[in-house]
C-alpha cells in the first residue's frame, strides 16, 4: 500500500531554520522522505513504533553536506494510516561535523 505523506507546518518551519542547509538540500530531504515514507510507512510503524497503541513511529533520516552530517529524527503520526495517510508531526536535528 502506498501512503500519502503530509507535513505539519512547524516541521517545515523548523527545517527552514537549520543553518548549513540550502533550500535545494531541504527540497532533496523532503523528496527523499516522501518517497521512503509513502513506500515503507507500515514497515517503519512495525519496527520503530513509539507508543503501545501504535499510533506513531520514529523515522530517522541522514543528509550529508560534506563535511557535515545532518541527522534528523522525525515522528510520524499514523492515526489515519488505514485511509492511506501518514503525517510528519515533529522533527529535531543533530549536526555532526567529521574531522
Amino acid at each position, binding site marked *: 500500500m502506498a501512503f500519502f505523506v503530509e507535513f505539519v507546518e512547524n516541521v517545515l518551519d523548523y527545517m527552514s531554520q537549520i543553518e548549513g542547509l540550502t*533550500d535545494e538540500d531541504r527540497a532533496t530531504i523532503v523528496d527523499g522522505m516522501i518517497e521512503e515514507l509513502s513506500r515503507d510507512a507500515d514497515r517503519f510503524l512495525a519496527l520503530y513504533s513509539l507508543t503501545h497503541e501504535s499510533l506513531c513511529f520514529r523515522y530517522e533520516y541522514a543528509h550529508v553536506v560534506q563535511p557535515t552530517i545532518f541527522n534528523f529524527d522525525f515522528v510520524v503520526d499514523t492515526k489515519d494510516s488505514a485511509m492511506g495517510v501518514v503525517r510528519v508531526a515533529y522533527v529535531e536535528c543533530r549536526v555532526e561535523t567529521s574531522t
Partner: protein
Amino acid sequence: MPTLLEDLVKESSASNRRFADRVAEEAAQGNRGEVIQSARQAADRAISRVPEAEDFWNEALAAFREEPTGAHVESLLRLLLNSFESSRQLVQSARALWEVAIDVGASPERLQQLEQAERRFEELASEAKRALEHRAAKWQPADPTRLAQGLQTAREGKTIKADEARSRFRQTKS
C-alpha cells in the same frame, strides 16, 4: 509460552548452524569424489533459506503492527536476528565448499545466487538489529511539548500536502 513462529525460527537457526558446521567439515576434508556433490547440496540448501527468511520476517512485521512493543517482541526480534545470521553463516560455508570444489576442477555454479542470498540475509539482520536498538534506546524527543502540539495538529488534519511541501523549498531556491 513461545508462539509457533518463535519455535519455527528457533528450529531453523539450529538447523542452519548444524548444516553449516557439517559443510565446514566437508570443506576441511575436501574429498575429491564427494566435494562437488556436497557443494551443490550446500548451495541449494543455503539459497532455499531466503524465501523462508522472508516469510518469517513478513509474519513478524504483521504481528508487530498489531502489537509493536513488549518483551515478546524483543524476544522474537532476537530470534530472527539469530536466524538471519545463521543463514548467512550457511551461505558462507557453501561458498567456502565451492572454492574447494573449484580447486579440484569443478565449474562454479550458483555463486551469484549465493552472493545475493548473503546480501539479503545481511539486510534482514541489519533491520532486526536496528529495531532492537530502537527499543533499547527508548528515544525521547528533545522538545516533548512541540511533539505533543505537532501530533495534535496532525490529528486535526491541519497539514500540508506532499506537493506543497516539495514546492515550498523549490520556490524559495531562486
